[in-house]
């Protein structure tokens, strides 16, 4: 019998994933990771609160599958939380879900699944796995409004071959319906929104508590170096932000970039906001190998962004890329992922490290970064 470990959270998606696998005849084991919570805030951490754990346990009992909680608190803190803090310290806007998928789900949990003798790891993600030319391919979910393929671009070919996304073939409404029909206790649970370890708090409050030193007041300046104000610390701002800049001007100004080295917030007009180029590091190619030629692909620069056409040129051995957008994009943000799509298929992606265009700027990103 094929053994599958399902990552369970108490939520409706992973619950239905487990139920589907059980119905498909797999031998299913549910594992829930106890992730990191701030001391004293365990109850408000959505993913690991006692009630979420109790829900997952009840779902497992209903499905008659073994269920284990594994402590991942320390490794989560040392990777996901630390990189979140480090990212902001670098002037980036990090995406912790990517780190979590790479280090925790398909890292720590993956190792545990193998130790439990699993042939596959399954999650409740909305994405699909297909096959082409003997390789596993990562595809968008059938429910385009719930598609999570963006945060799954970090999977290696080997991992994808042994990963299942049972709910990716269904619409969210169908998943909820199945959960209700099968009497799964998590059927009515609302979806998670925020980062689990923020416990519903604004990320800036969290950052101030854990890395107060990265909030250093500095100058707000135009691209030409003209200082027009001061800011309270770079992590409080995000690319494309208009409100709360604390400067009064005739034309609305937007955050164009954050210059971490100079601790300067670079602002400009809407016209300046567009970026024609971006560079990405830590690129993963789902196929397992980098392309030798530049690719015409659609690129998503944020989880919720619409894909835009671009040419992606592999640099170095393919672990970095340059992205030339057909039309300038307004919110390409260092720290977020750029993910490359060929239609439904995820080819790969990486972390945006710099953006630029052909306008004169003091920001050092209009040439290829070293």
């Amino acid at each position, binding site marked *: 019998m094929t053994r599958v470990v399902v990552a369970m959270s108490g939520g409706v998606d992973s619950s239905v994933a487990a139920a589907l696998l059980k119905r498909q005849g797999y031998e299913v084991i549910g594992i*829930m*990771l*106890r992730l990191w919570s701030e001391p004293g805030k365990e109850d408000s951490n959505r993913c690991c609160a006692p009630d979420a*754990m109790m829900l997952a*346990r009840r779902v497992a009992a209903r499905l008659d599958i*073994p269920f*284990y909680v594994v*402590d991942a608190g320390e490794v989560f803190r040392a990777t996901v939380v630390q990189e979140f803090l480090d990212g902001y310290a670098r002037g980036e806007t990090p995406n912790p879900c990517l780190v979590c998928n790479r280090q925790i789900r398909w890292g720590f949990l993956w190792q*545990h699944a193998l130790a*439990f003798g699993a042939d596959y790891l399954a999650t409740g993600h909305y994405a699909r796995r297909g096959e082409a030319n003997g390789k596993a391919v990562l595809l968008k979910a059938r429910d385009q409004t719930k598609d999570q393929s963006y945060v799954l671009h970090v999977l290696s070919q080997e991992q994808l071959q042994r990963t299942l996304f049972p709910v990716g073939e269904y619409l969210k409404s169908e998943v909820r319906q199945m959960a209700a029909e099968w009497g799964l206790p998590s059927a009515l649970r609302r979806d998670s929104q925020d980062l689990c370890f923020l416990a519903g708090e604004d990320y800036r409050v969290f950052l101030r508590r854990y890395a107060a030193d990265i909030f250093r007041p500095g100058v707000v300046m135009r691209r030409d170096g003209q200082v027009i104000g001061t800011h309270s610390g770079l992590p409080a701002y995000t690319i494309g932000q208009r409100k709360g800049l604390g400067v009064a001007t005739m034309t609305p100004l937007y955050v164009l970039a954050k210059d971490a080295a100079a601790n300067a917030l670079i602002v400009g007009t809407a016209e300046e906001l567009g970026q024609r180029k971006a560079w990405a590091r830590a690129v993963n190619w789902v196929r397992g190998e980098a392309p030798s030629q530049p690719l015409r692909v659609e690129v998503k620069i944020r989880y919720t962004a619409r894909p835009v056409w671009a040419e992606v040129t592999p640099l170095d051995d393919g672990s970095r890329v340059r992205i030339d957008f057909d039309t300038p994009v307004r919110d390409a943000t260092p720290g977020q992922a750029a993910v490359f799509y060929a239609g439904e298929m995820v080819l790969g992606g990486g972390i945006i490290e710099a953006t630029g265009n052909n306008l004169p700027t003091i920001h050092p990103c209009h040439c290829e970064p070293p």
Partner: protein
Amino acid sequence: MIYLDYAATTPVDERVLRVMRPFFSEIFGNPSSAHRFGQRAEAAVETARETVAGVLNCRPDEIIFTAGGTEADNLALRGVMLAEMESGRNRLLTARTEHAAVSKTAEHLEKYAGVQVTWLTVDEFGQVRPEHVAGALREDAALVSVMFANNEVGTVNPIAALAPLCRERRVLFHSDAVQAAGYLDVDVQKLGVDLLALGGHKLYGPKGVGALFVRHGTGLVPSLTGGGQETGRRAGTHNVPYIVGFAEALRLAKEERQERIAHVQPLRDYVIARVLQEIPEARLSGHPEQRLPNHASFVFRDADGNLLVQLLDAAGFACSSGSACKTGRPEPSEVLLAMGFTPAWARGSLRVTLGLGTTPEQVEAFLAVLPSLVERARRLHKEKTRS
């Protein structure tokens, strides 16, 4: 699935179930009722009390039926301390190795009732030695509570040496014998205890029933007040079928004690020998000889006992760990820390407890998978702490 967790609980013996059955629907009366229905139920409870008293070698009126071992321990500690404090003695002596039913109750009394608690020293095997008790007894001592056999590491305490020592000093002595009663002689005269707690489900009886022996003349303030059952010391309508089942299970445990020991002890010795021989960085926890005959417990350095138990479960074997928790946040066991194990060892504890249903084949199958699972648990532990 192979069950190797008989110290957690045991299945109800068919013979026990048989004597319980009539008391659910057929002989259903309330023992406190004056009519014949009540009289028949009362007769069953009093017969059960005589049976228990027979096993303990005490008077029937020295037995109080409770809803389990935890309640019996609670009643002993709370009841004696509240009674003794009226005479100005407010010190309770017990150990960190005690079952939580005792240690948490002691902490509770300290926090809310003005009881002073002395935590007795234990040796590397988790044993309380007579000199530990003798050295700690002061004028204000009211009660000493030391378990007969430890649930986590199986160590048997020298109760027959500890209890008389306390009696000489006019200090009351309670022993939690919940784990012990399945295999050891619980003759309260030989042991010399003033109070002794028992539970049904560790000896093939039902869950949710137990008893407290309270020596005649011992002051005891009730915890549950109400209808005056159990001579006013434990109110609440008697759980007739469970009391009947508990008494039968205890009787069988005494009657078949030698056969039961002869069945589990060689298997236990075999498990201990093979584990220590085949698994590197493994140690037996608890006393090598003075331990329960069905109880093997180990510590494996740099392994997470909680995870090991999960891996064993997925492989088809039910065991437990001192650091076992279902919420994924394992803490090294307090019992093992009190015995002097470092956290690196104490976190990796495994308890293998055998029972009447254990066969040599089951033990062989278990020993065939354990070394590789310990190895996996260690590898994952390294993974977890690598950062």
